[in-house]
Structure formats: structure tokens, C-alpha cells
């Protein structure tokens, strides 16, 4: 697994000597394993690693995982920056979920969380002065996202999956060094290395995602390599379709963060909750 990780980093140009690279760290098995792998490779290859965490404010869940994040950073001697929904937006995710229910916005917690977490992660990455952010997405995360976007018919989101290298003003590119490593192998790695990781389930997780995950796991158990096949086919399809749709970004009229629209999705969501 370490070899495959290193090959992904070298071949993808994900971290080069002299660079300062961010690692998105939740405290779960994937991101903690990634942090260890990156920090150790950084010592060998002379690049610097900074851990970046987002505290959404999910009671009974995020506190525990952030404890694991802190343990990992202090044992590796890695700089750790934490940004909070409460400070960035004036409300925790738990509070936003209640507001959304009261206001009947019809949007689920994952919509708020997904959009706003990416927003804060990008901001903290820029503030930390990193040239790229590595996330712990594994093969399972990737194929689940591919299948979900297929099922929802969301072609533009589908084509946005995968690495983005073109630098765009204000936006820190993301890379996924574990995207070809199955979730189970990442878990085995964390166990074998005896890493302190959080294994809890997000209390807001529901819907089709878990069904797609279980479906793919059942399929893979009986037909090994189908996850890898799905990823490869998707990549070839994407290439034939002309790659990812690159959109022009401009500063949001309200907050100044990069967005393809006049007002960014985060400001739109916050306005809908009466927070902006």
C-alpha cells in the first residue's frame, strides 16, 4: 500500500521537494492513514505537510474524531489548523439543520455540510499557504461517487470527479493519493500500524449513498476487481468526453471567495438560513 501511495504521489505530481502541502484531516481511518503516509514521505522527499481540519459542529461525532486528529498531529509533529463552522458562519451544522427545518428549506444536512466544508477547507488551505490539499478519498469513495452521479444523472458533477491540476485564482487544487486503494486495505493499514482513528458514523448519514456502498461491496465480494473496473472505465469515458468541465471562477459578490456564479453557493445557503 505504501508503494502504491508513493507511486500515486510521484506520478500525479502531488507533492514535490520544497513544497508545502495540506492534508485534509477528519480523524477517521482514511485521513489519519494519509497523514502518516504524507508526513513520512515528506521527511524523505523534503516537502512540508500541514494538517487542515474542519469542525462542522456535529454533536457527539466530530469532537471524538478531532481528538484522533490531534493525537496524529502531535505524534508526527505536524502543524495542525482547525476551522469551525461556528466561527466561519455563526452557527454549527447542528444549528443549521434546526434552522433549515424551521424554515422548511427542503435541503438535507449533507448539502449544507458538503458545500460549506469545502468552502472552509479551501479558505484554511489558502491561509496556511499550501499549494495543494490531499484528501483521504479511497477507491470505495470514488466508485460510490461515480455510481451515485450516474444514478442521479448529474453529468457535470460526474466529470468534475478526479484530479484537478489547473490552478485557478483563489482555489487550492485537491489531490487524492489513496483513490486507487480499497477502503478495506486502508482500514487494515491503520489497524496494523495501530493508529488511533475514529470509526464512528456521522449521525446525518442516510439515503442512497449507503445502499450504493453496500451494493458495490456485495458485487466486489463475488466479482473481485469490479470497483477498479468501474474507476478505469469512468476515466476512459471522461477522457473521450473531453475531460472535466473547467469553469471560470470569479470572486463572490458577497464574500470574495472563488465561484462560477455571481454569489457563491455557501453565501446562498447562508442567506437561506438567515445567517447572511
Amino acid at each position, binding site marked *: 500500500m505504501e508503494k502504491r501511495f508513493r507511486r500515486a504521489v510521484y506520478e500525479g505530481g502531488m507533492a514535490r521537494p520544497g513544497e508545502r502541502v495540506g492534508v485534509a484531516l477528519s480523524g477517521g481511518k482514511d485521513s489519519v492513514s494519509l497523514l502518516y503516509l504524507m508526513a513520512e514521505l515528506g521527511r524523505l522527499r523534503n516537502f512540508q505537510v500541514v494538517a487542515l481540519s474542519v469542525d462542522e459542529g456535529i454533536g457527539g461525532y466530530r469532537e471524538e474524531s478531532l481528538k484522533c486528529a490531534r493525537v496524529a498531529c502531535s505524534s508526527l509533529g505536524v502543524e495542525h489548523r482547525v476551522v469551525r463552522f461556528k466561527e466561519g458562519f455563526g452557527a454549527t451544522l447542528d444549528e443549521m439543520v434546526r434552522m433549515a427545518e424551521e424554515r422548511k428549506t427542503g435541503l438535507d444536512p449533507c448539502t449544507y455540510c458538503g458545500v460549506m466544508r469545502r468552502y472552509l477547507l479551501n479558505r484554511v488551505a489558502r491561509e496556511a499557504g499550501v499549494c495543494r490539499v490531499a484528501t483521504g478519498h479511497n477507491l470505495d469513495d470514488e466508485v460510490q461517487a461515480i455510481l451515485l452521479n450516474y444514478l442521479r444523472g448529474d453529468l457535470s458533477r460526474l466529470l468534475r470527479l478526479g484530479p484537478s491540476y489547473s490552478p485557478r485564482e483563489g482555489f487550492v487544487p485537491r489531490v487524492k493519493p489513496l483513490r486507487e486503494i480499497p477502503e478495506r486495505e486502508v482500514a487494515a493499514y491503520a*489497524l496494523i500500524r495501530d493508529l488511533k482513528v475514529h470509526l464512528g458514523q456521522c449521525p446525518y448519514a442516510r439515503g442512497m449513498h449507503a445502499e450504493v456502498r453496500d451494493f458495490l461491496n456485495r458485487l466486489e465480494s463475488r466479482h473481485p476487481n469490479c470497483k477498479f473496473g468501474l474507476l478505469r472505465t469512468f476515466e476512459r469515458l471522461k477522457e473521450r468526453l473531453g475531460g472535466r468541465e473547467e469553469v471560470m471562477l470569479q470572486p463572490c459578490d458577497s464574500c470574495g471567495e472563488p465561484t462560477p456564479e455571481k454569489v457563491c453557493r455557501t453565501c446562498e445557503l447562508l442567506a437561506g438560513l438567515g445567517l447572511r
Partner: protein
Amino acid sequence: MRVRVRSEGGEREIEVEEGATVQDLLERLGCDRESVLVRRGKRLVVEEERLSDGEELEILRVVTGG
């Protein structure tokens, strides 16, 4: 023969056939191998390994998110 299995759902004894493997046990329990890791003590075991009578195994669910 019987093996003791520890998992999220608690601990239980399972009757398996002589010569059964870890994979047989997982099928018996309705677990797909992609979602779990199996430990004997501190050591991870692969699905092809044979079980022995009276031993204890731990089944860890590895999938998260959702």
C-alpha cells in the same frame, strides 16, 4: 465445531463445519468480505484461513460514511 465471534453486535458462539474457513464463517453471518476485517487476537486473518475449534475471532466493520 464452534467458534466465538466478537463484533459490533456483541459476542456469540457459531457452529461451523469441520475445516471451515474465515470466508465460510462470513457467509454464515451474512457479511460480505469487503465490509469487514477479521482479527485473531492482534493479527488480521485472510478469508482462506481455516478456523479451529473453540477459537475466538473479532469481526470489525470497516466501512464508514454513508
